[in-house]
């Protein structure tokens, strides 16, 4: 199974990697439990910075598509196929759109929404919530 990324593509490289690996899982080209290449190997093969691959792996691990087993390496998560279909970005967009519509209906201006959003993002109390 091979993956291909395009360095000229406007989509960020780590997103391309995440999408490609999810696609490989959905199309059954990799199976749950299959080992994946190390960050260093994949970074060198794709001529990318290791941090880019590490970021993609971290996101895939968060989405339960892959799992790291310490020195044994990284493997495809047992529930990877189901979890690969979950699009967190789409979910975030839906929830934020709904919140923005509610605010507008209440008469809040766009700039007030932006300021409130920035404040909410910067609020330390919201971290990890």
């Amino acid at each position, binding site marked *: *199974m*091979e*993956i*291909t*990324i*395009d*360095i*000229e*593509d406007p989509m960020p490289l780590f997103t391309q990697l995440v999408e490609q*690996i999810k696609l*490989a899982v959905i199309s059954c*080209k*990799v199976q749950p439990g*299959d*080992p*994946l*290449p*190390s960050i*260093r*190997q*994949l970074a*060198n*093969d*794709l*001529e*990318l910075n290791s941090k880019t691959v590490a970021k993609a792996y971290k996101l895939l691990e968060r989405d339960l598509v892959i799992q790291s087993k310490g020195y044994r*390496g990284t493997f495809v998560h047992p529930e990877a196929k189901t979890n690969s279909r979950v699009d967190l970005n789409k979910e975030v967009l839906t929830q934020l759109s709904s919140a923005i519509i509610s605010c507008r209906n209440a008469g809040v201006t766009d700039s007030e929404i932006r300021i409130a959003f920035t404040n909410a993002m910067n609020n330390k109390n919201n971290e990890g919530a």
Partner: protein
Amino acid sequence: MSINILFYILFLSQIILISYYYPKQIIKRIESVLKNYPPESYPKLYPESPEKVIAAKARYQLLNQIILLIGLVLLGAYGLMSTDYDDNQKHAEGLPLMFGMVQFIPFMLLEVSGCRQFRLMRNANKCTSRTAALTPRRLFDYVSPLFIFTAVVLIFTYLFFNLYINDFVITNSFLIQIFALGLVHVLFIGLTIWHLTGKRLDPHQAVKDRSNQTEFSIKSMVSVSIFFSLFLMANEALDFYQLGYIEIMINSIYFQVIAFFGIGSMLKTVRIENINFEVYKADSTSA
């Protein structure tokens, strides 16, 4: 006299194998690539003009012919010289080793030239897409654990054997041999790590071809490690049993074995017809 005759045969075999037979096979490969995969159809294979490849091939051929001639002269000189020694007297035992090192110079130059070609290929590569396999390259995917285990056991066997026959006295010669053994193995381990996780030299090389090359390289290094330990053990044993006059033959055999597992298995394993040359076509997007 019989020892001398045996050595003549072995040394002649070393000269022919490393400076005639294998170079001839390599030249045939270069010619086959030039003929079947011309620059018009496979431009990515030629970062420089094909004339430069032909010139490099001619230089390689000439260098081997000169070394072949030197080898034959040395064989003649040895024939004249050896009449002054008894059959069981150790003499000129370094000849096959020193000459063997000279015989490997054209192969090393060819490797350097290959690395230069790959660097030019990388510089000329304008392709923006990058392909990688989604499978890990792990050591035991390419070589059996038993093979590695044998190599490691032989290193320790050699160390124990050397200490045993020297009454567990650590001599300077032993330390030098340990240093040489260590250096060779550090190089092998470094090369293995590079093959498994490092960047590919050829930016267009197909994933399967890279895998084949990794397998061949790791197997060759393990084989060379095994024969290096055996060679050192054989030399120690010859000294201990005062059979130093056989050392000259062991040295010649050693170089031939190294050539067989290095160049010979490369020619046998990495076959032209199995290499994916489609990636070198102008319209190919693989990188």
